[in-house]
């Protein structure tokens, strides 16, 4: 710390006295500030096929649970093979008769309408998203819902300019596509998948994750209100078997999957030998690299945002912190301090920073991996926080003294758990960052512009953020290297994955 100009009067450094501490106590506790907008949930959600809500042929339903209090929110139709088949036939018919023939400028009108209707009902959607998935209301309100609308707006703008997607080439839609999305950003992933497919003139069968189907089906209401021709978008709900039916059906020309690397590999295996196009957006174990010349307080903010955003349920989460040895102690001390003011609890409270873990299964997985971290000798820190008695919660957790041989440094935890490693030279940082099966994202923190450029070319990651983390924009392509998948979503590159060159 500063010694400043030599020979000046200095405040004496503390000697032998206890280390000064900051007190983050209960002098000024915030009163509960629950978001009260009505999520307008139905008791029962049917399948959305051919522009109508229809009961599943099997007559079976499953429950969607609020992870914040373990209460049942609604029952969701369970689609089987026959339902998926009906959805694909509706999509094929829509492609052949209406959507595939419609000029881009006309398609754009529908997409603009969906975006605006989503904005109109933003609060309602934010509350529904938070209740269904457990993420803090401030994130669904300020990130998920506005970003979902932004994706529809952006791609609506492309719909009549598709001649410029691949300059010098002519392009055509693929036809019908099948899409399976995960539970971490239910509505936003719908938008990421639907908007480019629709803008390009494709028709869609989409399956949301079984724990978070509600906002997808609410989006179906908006699609109905927007007057989209029947069959252009079909939403079928269910678990793994339904997903396998969506991926394995003969009609779709392409399937797109976002989820775990494990399931991605199963899908790829099952489709080997077919002529289906595929895009896969899979897991990650991103390195967030802090150099000694970085703006440390902002870097700490970036670490927090990188790993605790959405309880760490983010495929591009900065789950491995690589910190330059000279500043490691300082960064860890600042990080611990910052974690003490994180507010963990009721996701519907507007002041909550870290909400509920999406499902009991995920909580069990996080708990098991954290236990393995402790067992393998890494040093764990969790700030003191009282978790609600009911519901699935996990406190923000960091592990220091982690090495690449620890499980917590290699496996995707998908929870609010950070593993901290150190490095000595930039080369070592790159080596450690790339020493993983994944390659979705990375972060670099330094005050040196040249180092940012060098690192970003050497890091094998689809996205490299410099002096920031978890920034998204519809104009920017997103996707992975290696076992984090292939194909891009967003931007011009994302559109290319939903067309063929003719």
């Amino acid at each position, binding site marked *: 710390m500063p010694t*400043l100009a030599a020979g000046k009067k200095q*405040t004496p450094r503390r000697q032998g006295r206890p280390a000064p501490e900051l007190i983050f106590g209960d002098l000024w506790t915030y009163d509960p500030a629950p978001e009260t907008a009505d999520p307008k949930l139905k008791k029962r959600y049917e399948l959305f096929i051919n522009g109508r809500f229809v009961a599943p042929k099997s007559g079976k339903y499953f429950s969607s649970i609020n992870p914040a209090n373990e209460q049942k929110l609604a029952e969701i139709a369970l689609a089987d093979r026959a339902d998926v088949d009906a959805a694909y036939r509706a999509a094929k018919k829509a492609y052949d008769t209406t959507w595939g023939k419609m000029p881009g400028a006309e398609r754009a009108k529908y997409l603009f309408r969906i975006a605006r209707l989503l904005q109109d009902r933003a609060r309602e959607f934010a509350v529904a998203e938070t209740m269904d998935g457990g993420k803090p209301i401030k994130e669904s309100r300020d990130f998920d819902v506005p970003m979902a609308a932004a994706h529809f707006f952006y791609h609506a703008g492309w719909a009549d300019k598709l001649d410029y997607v691949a300059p010098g080439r002519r392009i055509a839609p693929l036809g019908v596509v099948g899409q399976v999305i995960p539970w971490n950003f239910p509505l936003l992933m719908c938008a990421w998948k639907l908007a480019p497919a629709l803008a390009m003139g494709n028709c869609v069968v989409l399956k949301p994750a079984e724990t978070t189907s509600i906002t997808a089906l609410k989006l179906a209401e908006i699609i109905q209100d927007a007057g989209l021709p029947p069959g252009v978008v079909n939403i079928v709900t269910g678990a793994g078997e339904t997903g396998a039916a969506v991926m394995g059906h003969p009609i779709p020309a392409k399937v797109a999957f976002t989820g775990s690397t494990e399931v991605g590999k199963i899908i790829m295996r099952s489709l080997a030998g077919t002529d289906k196009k595929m895009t896969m957006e899979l897991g990650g174990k991103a390195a967030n690299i802090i150099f000694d010349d970085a703006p440390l307080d*902002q870097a700490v*903010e970036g670490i927090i945002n990188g790993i605790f955003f959405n309880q760490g349920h983010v495929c591009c989460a900065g789950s491995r912190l690589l910190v330059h040895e000279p500043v490691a102690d300082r960064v860890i001390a600042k990080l611990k301090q910052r974690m003490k003011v994180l507010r963990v609890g009721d996701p519907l409270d507007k002041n909550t920073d870290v909400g509920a873990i999406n499902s009991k299964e995920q909580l069990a997985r996080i708990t098991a991996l954290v236990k393995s971290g402790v067992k393998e000798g890494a040093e764990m820190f969790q700030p003191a926080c009282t978790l609600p008695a009911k519901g699935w919660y996990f406190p923000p957790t960091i592990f220091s003294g982690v090495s690449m041989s620890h499980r917590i440094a290699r496996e995707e935890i998908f929870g609010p758990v950070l593993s901290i490693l150190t490095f000595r030279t930039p080369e070592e940082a790159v080596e450690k960052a790339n020493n993983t099966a994944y390659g979705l994202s990375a972060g670099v923190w330094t005050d040196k512009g040249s180092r940012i450029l060098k690192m970003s070319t050497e890091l094998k990651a689809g996205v490299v953020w410099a002096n920031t983390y978890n920034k998204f924009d519809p104009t920017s392509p997103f996707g992975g290297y290696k076992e984090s998948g292939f194909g891009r979503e967003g931007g011009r590159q994302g559109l290319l994955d939903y067309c063929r060159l003719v």
Partner: protein
Amino acid sequence: MNAGQSASFRRLFDEVGPVDAVGIEERVAKYTTRSIKKSAKLWGLKTAVTMVDLTTLEGKDTPGKVASLCQKALHPSDDSTVPPVAAVCVYPAMVRHARRALGPGAKVRIASVATAFPSGQTALVTRLAEVRRAVADGADEIDMVINRGAFLAGEFAEVQDEIAAVVAACGAATLKVILEVSELETYDKIRAASFLAMSVIRPGDFIKTSTGKTTLNATLGNNQVMLEAIRDFYLDTGTAIAMKPAGGIRTAKQALQFLIAVKETLGDAWLNNKRYRFGASSLLNDLLRQIEKERTGAYQAPYYFSEAAESY
């Protein structure tokens, strides 16, 4: 700038570390999304009242104006649960009038902007004489400006020597060092200047954002940079420096956002008027308006709480 000066710049900035402007603004934007309700809001509003340095710094200040300001400072509201403010802040010529109005040993302290406020562009002896006179007239606190000319020219030793000289001239009076952030312009420089000042002032002395006489004054961004500097300095040396944002904080909502920044950066020990102040004039009536709204559940007619400090 000669080689020695540019080296001293580099050395100082290397020591205190850089600040990323985009990052700091993202951080403070999160404070504005905090939702403070009911008893937490009332506590925040009343605490903010106790932190106000009720200020009048005009060429047209008169003993009468200062007397009414003092009255307002002692009894901000008819509501007896509303505490007095921390201090009145006046030009040196008005200190004796303020002392007469408040009486000796008043609950409200007298702060005075000495050292050729706001520019500071006179000889050091003149500035020191002004400080001594203000203290002799009864000022409890001195708000000084740093020598921005020297700072921007890289003459850090001169800046520190001058602050140290003012510390000596203050005697028992508390010192507040105004960095005048809008003239330093970058967050890097604000952080560096904070450290420069903190290393020569005493525990309990303040660093302060601005004079209120330039276009850009206290913002959540520069408040945050200075709070983080105070935090790092405290954790490193054990010396607790206080903070005063001044200028541009006009609404209760803003004041609560600044207090949230204090709570989440420095913690409970800084949530009092010995460690945190607001330099403001029209803020007080908005705080009172909101306190009354919390009490009665309704906003009062606008003429109950004037926006203009002239009507105190």
